[in-house]
């Protein structure tokens, strides 16, 4: 008997390897750069390892901490404003009859439909006139227009997943409309709303173009710092900043994965 070797493993292994390299290659490179003291061409690996650049980033004179602070403040404010708009909007949309619903949901996509650059340039010009340029409020406003799509779409799905019967059951035994919303609908939609908050937070943390045009140079966020560092050839600082940006993203993604249930996801955009 001859043992036949299944040659199919070969292309599969190659494909998987390639995929792993595409995903983890840049990440490994980034991690290496954060601890490289000295690294130049043609060397495959850094010549010197150390945390010297971390000290520089976190030193009182480095901009990283300030940028991180303003990034978090801006992202938090963006979440608050977006949810304040998305909760009533999402609730109304989820209880609306269908033809209008699709139209409204589509309307929130419009800011995404145009090329970002000209839009932001115009916003910057307008904000400059009314004195919002270079302020946290201005940057938050830009981030809100960006994040509102996610917030409204996910909030609509979250509220749609709450059966109208559940709300009516509360109404029928004596709860007014606000009481029923507060006691029944809101708690049941909370996981979805939390997920939408996280998406908005991450979007805001990551946002570059709008922040650059509206906020710079007075407001510096982590992505702006990253840009300045890497365009100055300072790969260590850039990598450390990128790592800082990566941590909340990965952490929150794990949370979202837990909270965004299938029944909510299936209603996104419906």
């Amino acid at each position, binding site marked *: 008997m001859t043992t036949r070797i299944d040659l199919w493993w070969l292309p599969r292994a190659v494909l998987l390897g390639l995929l792993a390299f595409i995903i983890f290659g840049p990440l490994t490179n980034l991690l290496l750069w954060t601890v490289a003291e000295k690294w130049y061409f043609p060397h495959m690996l850094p010549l010197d390892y150390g945390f010297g650049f971390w000290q520089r980033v976190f030193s009182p004179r480095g901009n990283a901490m300030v940028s991180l602070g303003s990034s978090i403040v801006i992202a938090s404010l963006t979440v608050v404003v977006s949810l304040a708009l998305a909760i009533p909007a999402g609730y109304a949309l989820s209880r609306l009859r269908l033809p209008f619903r699709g139209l409204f949901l589509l309307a929130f996509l419009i800011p995404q439909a145009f090329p970002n650059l000209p839009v932001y340039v115009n916003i910057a010009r307008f904000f400059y006139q009314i004195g919002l340029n270079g302020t946290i409020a201005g940057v938050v406003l830009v981030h809100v227009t960006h994040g509102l799509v996610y917030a409204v779409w996910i909030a609509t799905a979250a509220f749609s997943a709450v*059966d109208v*019967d*559940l709300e*009516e*059951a*509360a*109404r*029928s*035994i*004596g*709860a*007014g*409309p606000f*009481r*029923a919303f507060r*006691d*029944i609908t809101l*708690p*049941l939609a909370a996981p979805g709303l939390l997920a939408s908050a996280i998406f908005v937070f991450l979007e805001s943390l990551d946002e570059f173009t709008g922040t650059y045009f509206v906020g710079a140079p007075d407001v510096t966020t982590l992505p702006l710092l990253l840009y300045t560092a890497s365009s100055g050839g300072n790969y260590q600082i850039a990598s450390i900043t990128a790592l800082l940006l990566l941590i909340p993203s990965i952490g929150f993604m794990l949370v979202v994965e837990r909270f965004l249930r299938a029944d909510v996801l299936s209603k996104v955009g419906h």
Partner: protein
Amino acid sequence: MDAGAFLSIEDISVGYGPTTVLDGLNLAIGKGEFVALLGSSGCGKTTLLRTIAGFARPAKGAIRVADRNVTHLPPDKRGMALVFQSYALWPHMTVTQNMAYGLKLQGRGRQEITSRIGELQGLLGLSGLGDRKPAQLSGGQRQRVALGRALAIDPEILLLDEPLSNLDARIRLTVRHEIRALQKRLGITAVHVTHDREEAMVMADRIVVMNRGRIEQQGTPEDVYNRPASPFVAAFMGAENLLDMEVSVGPQRINLAGQQVLAMPHHRDLRSGRAEIRFRSEAATLLRPGESPPAQAGGLELAGGLELTGTVANVSYPGGHFRHGVRIGEREILVDSPAPFNQDEHVRVYVPSSALFIFNTSTDGENDRQTEAISN
């Protein structure tokens, strides 16, 4: 409306967009009465219930509870409680929290709430389940929690929207009696929506048969069952056998295609002409040629009945008796018999006068379409 009516629905019309679901409907319900709204899906019974509850807005008409006009009151101000078909229990609350919510809204003290809910849980057989979430309950238990949640607020009117349709057939039979007993004991006024004839018959004081947004007939279960006012009601109440015949109406007797049957009180609106004859499979008797019909009180001559001849097309045994498909001319009817007959055997079918429901065929053929929709 009736002076004694506790809940009165006056000339109510409800529509969704261009379609009219209820059209000028009137209904009066007494205090402590258990009324079943019976009809097939799409007849408007659930819409009527939701209109009473305040979830559907009538285009015209009024709803009064004890002479208080509640037509424009929101659902939470009507003093009613609705039990949903889906039970609509709140998954983030425990059984006790679900049941206590209404009392909490009323601002009752904790002591009072605890004792009232404890009492209700005992009454409903839910003791010891108070800390469970709805997901950890069986269907029957969920149904009881939903009922308990509605009863906790001591509503003037209890509205039930097919509350038994999601239960196992076996549990359903016992829950029927439980709900009925509870309603009697609490003296609560109840409106129950169902498409199940037997459920309505067993539970209700009065059955309101609905069809296409109108009330076809209302009366006691016995009334509706034995004296259906329209072909639709007859078919819905189980008189599925249908024959077309020429009738001529005399003072005491009705001539059905040459045969004399006794005119019964429920035949009084009959006119001579084409008519459709309806009867239940269990009301007819299957006879061999030459065999005489069973003796009846008052004798055969007085009772009279319809005799038909045909051949047995098929035999089945649904339990308790044999069910025969009997071919009579173009039509096939179903007749029950304690003993089986052979396939293709020539038989006679005897239907006593009291079991015959005779209706004039309307000229536009509307009745035909309605009744066909039921038998499908």
